[in-house]
């Protein structure tokens, strides 16, 4: 009798990504860590799984929790041991957030990231970015602060419906 036989076959990259897609970002629970582009790679062999992640911001305090949630999600499906590797190259960018995920963000009340800010550093010369109010869809919005409740968001207010809202900053 071979009791050491593996309980399941080595999962493919697609299967792993499907499971990882169930792990939500703790600070933006409407999106998964796959949709946000935090998960860069997942490779399994007979010895275990290596999941490669990248932080959104250098000081992102959610990374430890994300790592734990990834282990939990895979362990629930009998996959392990899991090694979570952190990479900083290439640097995370909001360009990795897809169209579907952007729609989810807006429906959740967070304006999705727009185009990258220009690198012009001198204030007052910068063109105002156009951000649409996620509530009434008005473009008559203004930025109150470049810094919001988390590192990845800025604070805006809609001049039409008067609703304050957050924007996922484009970086």
């Amino acid at each position: 009798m071979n009791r050491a036989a593996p309980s399941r076959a080595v999962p493919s990259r697609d299967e792993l990504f499907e499971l990882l897609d169930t792990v939500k970002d703790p600070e933006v629970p409407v999106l998964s860590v796959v949709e946000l582009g935090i998960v860069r790679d997942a490779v399994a062999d007979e010895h275990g799984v290596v999941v490669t992640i990248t932080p959104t911001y250098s000081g992102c305090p959610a990374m430890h929790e994300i790592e734990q949630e990834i282990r939990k999600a895979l362990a629930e499906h009998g996959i392990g041991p899991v090694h979570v590797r952190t990479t900083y190259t290439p640097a995370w960018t909001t360009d990795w957030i897809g169209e579907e995920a952007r729609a989810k963000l807006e429906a959740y009340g967070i304006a999705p990231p727009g185009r990258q800010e220009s690198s012009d550093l001198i204030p007052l010369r910068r063109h105002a970015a156009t951000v649409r109010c996620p509530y009434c869809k008005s473009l008559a919005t203004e930025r109150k602060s470049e810094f919001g409740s988390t590192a990845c968001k800025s604070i805006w207010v809609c001049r039409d419906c008067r609703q304050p809202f957050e924007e996922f900053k484009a970086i």
Partner: protein
Amino acid sequence: MADSFLFPYLLRLADDRLILGHRLSEWCGHGPILEEDIALANIALDLIGEATLFYKLAGEAEGQGRNEDGLAYFRDAVDFRNALMVELPKGDFGVTIVRQFFFSAYSLLQMEALTKSSNAELAGIAAKAVKESRYHVRHSAQWVVTLGDGTEESHKRAQRAVNDLWRYTGELFLSDAIDQEAAKAGIGVDPSTLADAWRTQVMEVLQRATLTTPTVNYMQRGGRDGKHTEHLGHLLSEMQIVARSHPGASW
């Protein structure tokens, strides 16, 4: 065996950001308006995050088994290699903003140059820090203009901050054997090569803010060699007390 310049070179990058991040965190709950309270805490978080990554690399380069917590919490003032400017007390909002602008403009140039480092990990961290430094510069430059070109009182305080901090800016661009070896190896950047670009950018913003660029040439120095002001020891005693009272604690 890593190159001998690598550990001290990385330590300077990390120490600048940890100490300034700590100074900024002192504003948490004390900001002049809620948005600024949040902004300064956010910037502090970015800087401390960047410091953590640089410490991790530094610890690996040193090869003595010290991790980021060991380097941040279990060294004394004489072991720190931050520039003097970042350890000065937070002062009023004008001092905090002017210092942040001086440092962020420097940090952006430095990180941009480090994205070309032959050390892939260092280049990766720098690429991340560039994105963050860019909005740190925007934020502080905007405030320098608002304060400088604002009321009589805000102008007076902003100008005083510029005058008081100016003599600490020279140290950012000093270059010694550690910097030169790091630059020669293609790993680091010689800070003296950043001075002209920094001066141009800073003067443009000061001018827009109706502030006068000081003409004094005397510059303070010492931080890169571990000779600090009395302020660093006080900062460290507060920052390190918990880690030192409960070494190895985790939660």
